[in-house]
């Protein structure tokens, strides 16, 4: 089974050429999941039968001579806040465990399916997506494949761990304040948080309507673009996401090879250096240097922007769950329950001011994009912390681990900018750390081209050494990341 290709791009190509059957891929993938998931706790449900029947359907279609699909035979999994037909959508919360099963797949799960993907299961997350470590009191912590005593990041921790361990090349996650980017950074995989409103959220469990984004995590920059292209498109029939911008598909896969030719790059300094460890700063400098950064930029009032995101998140999240907080407090995650409740009780003025700051901050940052096309910043302040670790030290200051993991991601998603994360392994490092590649609204293509360029330069990629499982990494360190 180790002979099978492991990236999505390679799997789809091998399937199209008839070198491998979808069933072979599905079987090998399910074996890998069965072997490694017990120590990772990445999956909360494995949909083996569905993956096999989807595989058989693809094999039958190929036998009939039908044209191959872009993600044909590519195994994937989704954070357990995506609806999967016939299963209860948990959103990491025991609170929801008694809900009826979903009637249909979430819009993005449908798109992955239509593109030929094989759904392997649902992935663990912080309860209700409120957290950055996937230390889920009810469903257990997800462990980092590079060091099982450490967190996988969160809230899409199961996504980060499943891709990093080579279980699947693509996972779908959600990002409200950093929940795709943090696990991508700590597990060392690629991730994309598209522009707010780009991908429809129908059929996924909400957290903060005005900040929720869905997006892919992947084993290579090309896989990330491939998945993103398959996910694009306006609300489909019956789509219910009022924030979905209804934009036409703007494919990115073909533009990757252009790299950053003609684009102006800058590195974010100021707050993004102050809130970063030396390792995280080195990573952003390394990426900046590789991508030909013109210099450093300091954005105004980033700390206040992050604070405003924090306030809005608590207020909206708290309001969403107030009734359950009143009636079923014991079914909440103790690590976030009182934060949600405090959010629900907050004076409206605080939220109002946070929203005003958001409008102002968005304008200021958009002005920056007149002179620059790509901004670079670390994705997390530090590499993966230990499970249960309460505090971490950044530049001599002791901070609470769980909320602080999002210090660098929160100000960016706050204003909906598209961001890709590319994982770096610095000299001698035993753990990866990601950089954020940030572009103007609707320019996911630039984020992805930057990720691809970093990978092509040999600076970014999934573990060059493989994981502690010895799962062979995707062949992503050659100069042709495709």
């Amino acid at each position, binding site marked *: 089974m180790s002979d099978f290709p492991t990236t999505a791009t390679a799997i789809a190509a091998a399937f199209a050429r008839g070198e491998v059957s979808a069933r072979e891929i599905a079987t090998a993938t399910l074996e890998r999941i069965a072997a490694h998931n017990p120590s990772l706790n990445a999956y909360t449900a494995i949909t083996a039968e569905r993956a096999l029947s989807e595989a058989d359907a693809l094999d039958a279609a190929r036998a009939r001579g039908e044209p191959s699909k872009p993600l044909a035979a590519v195994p994937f999994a989704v954070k357990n806040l995506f609806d999967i037909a016939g299963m209860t959508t948990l959103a990491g919360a025991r609170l929801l465990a008694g809900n009826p099963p979903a009637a249909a797949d979430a819009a993005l799960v449908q798109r992955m399916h239509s593109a030929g993907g094989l759904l392997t299961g649902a992935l663990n997350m912080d309860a209700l997506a409120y957290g950055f470590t996937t230390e889920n009191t009810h469903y257990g912590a997800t462990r980092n494949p590079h060091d099982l005593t450490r967190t996988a990041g969160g809230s899409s921790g199961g996504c980060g761990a499943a891709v990093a361990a080579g279980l699947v090349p693509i996972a779908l996650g959600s990002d409200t304040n950093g929940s795709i980017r943090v696990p991508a950074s700590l597990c060392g995989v690629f991730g994309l948080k598209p522009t707010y409103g780009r991908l429809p959220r129908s059929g996924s469990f909400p957290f903060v309507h005005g900040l929720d984004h869905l997006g892919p995590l992947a084993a290579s920059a090309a896989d990330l673009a491939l998945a993103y292209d398959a996910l694009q498109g306006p609300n489909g029939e019956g789509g219910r996401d009022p924030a979905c911008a209804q934009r036409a598909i703007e494919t990115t896969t073909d533009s990757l090879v252009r790299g950053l030719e003609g684009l102006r790059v800058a590195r974010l300094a100021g707050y993004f250096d102050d809130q970063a460890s030396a390792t995280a700063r080195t990573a952003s400098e390394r990426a900046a240097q590789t991508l030909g950064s013109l210099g450093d930029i300091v954005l105004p*009032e980033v700390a206040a922007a992050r*604070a405003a995101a*924090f306030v809005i998140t608590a207020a909206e999240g708290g309001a969403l769950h107030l009734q359950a907080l009143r009636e079923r407090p014991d079914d909440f995650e103790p690590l976030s329950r009182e*934060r949600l409740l405090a959010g629900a009780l907050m004076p409206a003025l605080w939220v109002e001011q946070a929203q005003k700051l958001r409008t*102002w901050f968005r304008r200021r940052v958009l002005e920056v994009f007149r002179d620059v096309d790509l901004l670079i910043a670390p994705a997390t302040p530090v590499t993966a912390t230990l499970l249960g670790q309460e505090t971490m030290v950044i530049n001599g200051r002791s901070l609470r681990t769980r909320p602080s993991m999002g210090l660098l991601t929160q100000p960016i998603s706050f204003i909906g900018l598209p961001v890709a994360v590319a994982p770096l392994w610095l000299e001698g490092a035993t753990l990866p750390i990601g950089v954020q590649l940030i572009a103007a609204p609707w320019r996911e293509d630039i984020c992805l081209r930057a990720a691809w360029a970093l990978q092509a330069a040999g600076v970014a990629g999934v573990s060059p050494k493989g994981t502690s499982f010895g799962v062979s990494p995707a062949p992503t360190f050659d100069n042709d990341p495709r």
Partner: protein
Amino acid sequence: MSQLLEAIDVVKCFPVRIKGKKKLLHAVDGLNFHIDAGETVGLVGESGCGKSTLVRLLTRTLDITDGHVRFRGQGIGLIAARAMADHPLRREIQMVFQDPTDSLNPRYTARQAIAEAVHLLTDTRGAAAIDSAVEEAAAHVGLPPELLDRYPHQLSGGQKARVGIARAIVVKPRLLVLDEPTAALDVSVQAVILQLLDRLKREMNMSFLFVSHDLNVVRLLCDRVMVMYLGQIVESGPAREVFERPLHPYTRALIASLPGGHGNDSDLLVGGDPQSPIDPDAHRCRLFGRCPRGVERCQTQAPPLREISRGRAAACHFVAPTQREVFVDAALAVHKVHVTPARRAALTTEFDRLADMARQVQSVRLPDDDAPAPQYRP
């Protein structure tokens, strides 16, 4: 920090007969508190206020009359005391007793006493493995290996105390409960054992509940303190703050009565008789009669234990909560949300964090054009 233990409205009544009539002695009367992972909590209060009863309820060696106890999120209040011997919980909550002589079997050497705990409560098997666990624990408590083969009567009080502590920590509990661990020791030995406990607290990843009527000891050793009076908690908060700025009249009196303290004589308790724990009047403050501040209202309305400021709670009509606490209580009432006192305390912390964030947001002065006037036309 994650919560290790939570007590909710815990009650223990003992049936007693007074002049042939059946009555109830309210030894523990509606206690609410929590102990976080890694935290050292002190429990102080005068003799007979219910400290040992509470300890026996928490270690589940005494059945609870009413209320809930949660340990790591699991309800443990209903485990019958007699079922406790075989319960996995027994390993997680360990106890060090007041009198080391009483609690050690005279026919066991120190090594056997410590090894027995390993054998009964852990999966460690084989003489060599058990021996190494025993020796590690002995080293932890500073018990020289050559003393391990002695019997209790061949050990000093301080050495016996170390054996008692080693026996408790050898099974690596999550919570260590110490009921007056130094009361039976000579003053000179007390100091040494306290130093040992202080070191264990820093070295071992566990929580401590430390019962004492010695305020100075609690001040030195504990992160947080709870003050008990007649079966109820009257004040709780970070140990340093409570000693520096006691809120409740009873705590003030305890501190004022410390020898060489800076307390005020007007804080001392007045001469009235203490109320009885037998069938107490639920509408009267328990301190009334001895309280230097007591007024008419205290006789007819018992003050609830409420949040006063971040991390601090007190039960007295005259201790006013901060505006933030008043706001949070009012908001909870509006939304009809009921929270346990432990959750209420955590709520203040979270609310403060949000307030900090809101303050950061407000520190940015936005130009007027970014705050557009409302537009009524579509």
